[in-house]
């Protein structure tokens, strides 16, 4: 091999080796320089090197090129300010790897120097090109994967950077796998620390926006739960499942909620279970498919924090009591109170809406509370109960605008949001209306029963009385079935479900979701949603019929009573005179009386009688229409209601449909 040393134009192996050692660090050598076009180290054209050597040189110098690539990346990134903690760690880890490489180069270099000093060309420990190739064989593999990684990581940061490294660590080659896991461990460090701080203290230290929980500082505390914190989806590392990310978010959120909204100083970190589950092993975060240490930590802290939060809500802020209060007052659960209130308000509410005054009504409400079992309720709850008048738009009566109200504030308003309260008011309005129908109908019935006896002596009234009794019982049946449906099939069932879910709830979100579902079910089943607005309108029309019927009945009874009174007077007169041994009546008087009676029958009875028939017919038509709408409703509960109302097919739906189509024509 030393035969070439004499030849000056041929470069010696030692010189090539020296060049190559520089090349390995990305520095141009004497003969071998970096060729930008080819993106590789190439021996310069003037140097005369045999093809074999050129070949081997290019094999060795690949390391140099790869090194340059990685180096360029770390240099560029460390200049970038917004690269973030994760990125910094990544660069540091890469540099660490490069240092290892420097070490190798240094060893090689000293070997080469030694050879040169000793002037040995043959013998043990001599560095040759082949040995260089052997030495660079392992580093080449590492550098290759680093360079490939660096290529993919361009422009990524935070969680997504970690995701990429994680995907690269899924490799069958143990060397590469170890290398990537080493990098991953470094990169995950800041994420891990942020998670720990977040789930234990609720503090978010993320000046580079690289964590997967983001916080909006502009959001006020009353909306903290719903709006302040959110998941930054792009930054969730792929080794953290979505569900876990959600739990991490929730845990920190709960802590913040506890501290800032509930002003509670519970520290979950002190708990034994939490202490036991705590871990500082960073790698557990990306080895979740083989061990559950990290998951257990997250799970435990999540559970403890949520439990603490729910407990505070329950014990200090009496969440369940408020829920029950809403059920009792706004959803008419407290029957005696509602009935009493209705009794007290009945006269006021029949007046025009404009003549109602809040202070009067509040007084009435107070009376109603004092007079019923409601007085035993917690004073805090009763304080929140109030009267509210909906906006008056024209000629409504008091019934339409009256509403109970319940004031919520503080932590519980996170569950009972203003949107929820509006839904409560709408439901109250519906229930109140239905209740009023029941109230009105029982008043009619009372009157009918009382008057039936009085009017027995007026045979001309038999028909109209019979008809109106029939109509009244039809209405009562309808309203009672409606009430049954609302009370038992809607409210009770949903309430039961709600309680079950609230008791099972693991975190506040579950409670909120359960409550929302409760409201949604009621809204849907009480026909208050958009889909059923047509049916609701029909129901309103039916209710209106009841009110019309009530008014007409009242008028009719007034008149009949007046007539009855006149007749009684007449009879009494007659008796008085007979007692005085006079003629009971004179002919003229009798004629006057008979005319009056005739007129009464002609004018009042006949008109009222036909009015009742017309009313009954239109009522029947409306109920039929309502039923056929119900039967085709998508909600099964409502289909059952239709069956319940029409169990014996009293309302022949086909006939009704025909009638409707006829009237439309």
């Amino acid at each position, binding site marked *: 091999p030393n035969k070439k040393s004499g030849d000056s134009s041929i470069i010696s192996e030692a010189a090539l080796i020296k060049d190559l050692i520089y090349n390995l660090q990305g520095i141009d050598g004497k003969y071998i320089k970096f060729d930008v076009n080819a993106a590789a180290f190439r021996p310069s054209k003037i140097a005369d090197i045999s*093809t*074999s050597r050129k070949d081997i040189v290019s094999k060795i110098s690949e390391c140099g090129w790869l090194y340059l690539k990685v180096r360029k990346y770390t240099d560029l990134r460390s200049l970038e300010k917004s690269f973030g903690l994760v990125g910094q760690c990544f660069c540091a880890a890469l540099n660490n790897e490069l240092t290892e490489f420097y070490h190798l180069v240094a060893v090689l270099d000293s070997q080469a120097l030694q050879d040169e000093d000793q002037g040995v060309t043959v*013998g*043990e420990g001599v560095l040759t090109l082949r040995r260089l190739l052997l030495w660079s064989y392992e580093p080449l*593999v590492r550098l290759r994967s680093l360079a490939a990684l660096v290529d993919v990581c361009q422009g990524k940061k935070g969680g997504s950077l970690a995701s990429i490294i994680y995907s690269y660590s*899924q490799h*069958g*080659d143990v060397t590469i796998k170890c290398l990537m896991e080493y990098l991953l461990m470094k990169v995950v460090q800041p994420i891990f620390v942020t998670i720990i701080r977040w789930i234990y203290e609720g503090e978010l230290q993320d000046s580079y926006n690289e964590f997967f929980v983001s916080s909006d500082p502009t959001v006020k505390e009353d909306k903290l739960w719903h709006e302040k914190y959110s998941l930054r989806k792009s930054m969730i590392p792929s080794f953290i499942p979505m569900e876990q990310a959600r739990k991490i978010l929730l845990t920190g959120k709960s802590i913040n909620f506890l501290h800032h909204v509930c002003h509670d100083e519970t520290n979950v970190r002190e708990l034994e279970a939490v202490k036991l589950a705590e871990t500082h092993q960073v790698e557990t975060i990306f080895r979740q498919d083989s061990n559950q240490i990290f998951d257990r930590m997250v799970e435990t802290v999540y559970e403890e924090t949520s439990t603490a939060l729910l407990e505070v809500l329950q014990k200090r802020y009496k969440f369940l009591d408020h829920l029950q209060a809403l059920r009792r007052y706004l959803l008419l659960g407290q029957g005696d109170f509602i009935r009493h209130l209705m009794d007290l308000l009945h006269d006021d509410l029949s007046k025009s809406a404009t003549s109602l005054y809040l202070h009067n009504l509040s007084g009435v409400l107070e009376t109603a509370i004092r007079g019923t079992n409601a007085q035993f309720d917690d004073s805090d709850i009763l304080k929140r109960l109030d009267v509210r008048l909906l906006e008056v738009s024209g000629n409504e009566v008091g019934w339409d605008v009256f509403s109970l109200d319940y004031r919520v504030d503080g932590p519980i308003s996170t569950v009972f949001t203003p949107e929820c309260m509006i839904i409560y008011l709408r439901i109250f309005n519906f229930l109140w209306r239905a209740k009023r129908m029941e109230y009105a109908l029982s008043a009619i019935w009372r009157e009918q029963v009382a008057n039936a006896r009085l009017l027995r002596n007026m045979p001309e009234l038999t028909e109209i009385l019979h008809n109106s009794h029939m109509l009244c019982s039809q209405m009562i049946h309808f309203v009672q079935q409606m009430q049954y449906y609302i009370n038992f099939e809607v409210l009770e069932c949903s309430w039961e479900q709600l309680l079950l879910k609230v008791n099972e709830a693991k975190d506040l979100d579950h409670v909120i979701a359960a409550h929302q579902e409760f409201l949604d079910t009621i809204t849907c089943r009480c026909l208050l949603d958009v889909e059923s607005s047509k049916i609701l309108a029909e129901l309103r029309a039916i209710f209106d019929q009841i009110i019309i019927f009530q008014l007409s009945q009242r008028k009719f009874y007034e008149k009949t009573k007046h007539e009855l009174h006149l007749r009684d007077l007449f009879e009494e007169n007659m008796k008085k005179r007979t007692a005085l041994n006079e003629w009971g009546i004179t002919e003229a008087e009798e004629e006057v009386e008979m005319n009056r009676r005739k007129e009464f029958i002609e004018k009042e009875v006949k008109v009222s009688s036909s009015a009742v028939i017309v009313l009954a017919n239109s009522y029947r038509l409306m109920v039929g229409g309502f039923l056929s709408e119900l039967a085709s409703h998508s909600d099964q509960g409502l289909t059952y209601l239709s069956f319940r109302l029409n169990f014996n097919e009293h309302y022949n739906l086909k006939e009704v449909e025909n009638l409707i189509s006829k009237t439309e024509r």
Partner: protein
Amino acid sequence: VREIGNNDQIFPTVKSSTSIQEQEIIEDILFIMEGVTGRHIKEIPLSENYGRRDFNIDPSIDPMNKELIKRMLPLCSDYSTVVRFIEEKQAFEYGLVNQAVGAAMRSLINDYLVLICQLEHQSREGQLTLQKLWYYMQPTIRTMEILASISNAINQGECTGGAVLSLLYEKTHKHTGDKRAQDLCSFLMQSANKPYFDILEKWIFKGAIVDTYAEFMIEERQSLVKERLQNDYNDDYWEQHYIICRDRVPVFLERQAGLILNTGKYLNVVRLCGEHFQSTPSKPFVYTDNERELASRINEAYAYASGLLLNMLLEKQRLMDRLRSIKHYFLLNQGDFIVQFMDLAEEELRKNMNDIQESRLEALLELSLRTSAANIDQFKDDVRPELLKYDLVSQIFKIASIETKREKEYAIEHSDENLTGLEAFAFNYVVKWPVSLVLNKKVSIIYHPSFFIHLTKDFTSTWVTSKRVKSNDWEKYTAAFALRQRMLNFVHNLQYYMLLEVIEPNWHQLEKAISSAKNIDDVLEAHNEFLSSSMRDCMLTNPELLSMIHKLMVVCVTYSNCMQKALKSGSARGSSHTIEFQNTISKFDDNFSALLVRLLDKVLDFSLCSMTDLKLVNILHRLDFNGFYQDQLEARHG
């Protein structure tokens, strides 16, 4: 190896003596061995991707040396193949196993490079001759040959994952005689198995598949959702949500494949139900060539998983209670409920199918559930009425024919427009995951031998009406009543046989089997066994018997209708009608007797053919206990 011919590669002219030439040749060979072009030996560019590397040899080399070089060159070709293999398989798409194989090979290549450096060292000291080189190369040639052949086999088969493992396994066994080669192969095997066994471990201990590159033997099919189990006839979810990909199963796990599949599946079910479990291997789960140990490890995992699932189903999901509840409704165990329901719903069910309001039926069902002893059943809310599009017999045929050659025959749905509710009615039972693993739709539809409910009912009402007949009319009706009595006898005995002689003992066996079951497959098997033996003993699986029974039923029903009509209208009063009436009765009689005798005959035949079906003979004795039909039977045979 090719001789230089028309190739235009230029070799430097050699003028030096042979000994220098030998040094140069050695230098060249060392280069070529590392995949670097030499001065006198040059590689020919590859024509295809996985092609074998060939070399050109300077023709001026002394022919004896050339011969020796030619023998060395295969090593270089093999080296080239292996290196290309390693580099290529590094990419992600080839999967973890290939990467691991590549990594293992790379460590061998490293040794190879060390050897070259040593040879170079010797050569520089002037101690290496071509002969010596040839001698030193020997072991490496063999190694490289094996590596190259493995690489080629993997490349050709485009193998990934399990297939690579099978290939390596076969190679290992091919080289049983050659210790070194076998060691080499088992070294590769060990490394290649690592990632695969990681996946396997997660599957059999955690029930999760982490298989990014589709290498694992089990594949998850996302398209099958568990909710489908309730409304589809087949138990696809359980059978096909996870499937074994035969080409990915390593040969040495072939026998355990089913076990592995089930282990993971069980764990998966438990996980889907939100249960937490801790199943960890007692020691690291790695590949060993001791197959028995491997099998025992897998068995251990399987035993744990199946125990876990079984426990969950029995304790948490109360499978036994469910089954009992189903028995109430489908196997007519809860007599008062059935009677109550039939009383309530009969009027509705008599209508044409299209006129029946399902919501009304549902309300009636609910009413009867709540007013009978079924009220204490905690699962009563899961019972639903259902109206099928075809009557029960064709439905039973459909079930019985599943997976037999007759399947197509009955596959066409007899969509009959004129069905009455009575014929089309069936109970439906809402089964939720994971109990639906055991009680899926296909199974629960088998639970329908309720087709004679209305029959008994009919007869009872006929009997009630016939009580009204005045004593002086008795004579006219004697024949009719006798026939009615025989039919009643037939129906009652059939019912008795089915309920008490078939279902009850089988049920008892089922309960016993489930209580002693060790894993979920035992439960499934016991349940299937229960169903199929009940079906068989109830004569539901045999089309001939079934159609005969069905015909008998039809005769009975028509007869009962006819009787009721006759009794109500009193048409039998007029003398002209009497004869007509009696003719009708005797026609019915003939028809019924003929069918019944044929049925008994068939049963007799069956019991003679197969001695095992002992239960079936009971029906014969029961229906013909006093030898009433004996003569007719003998007449048929005679």
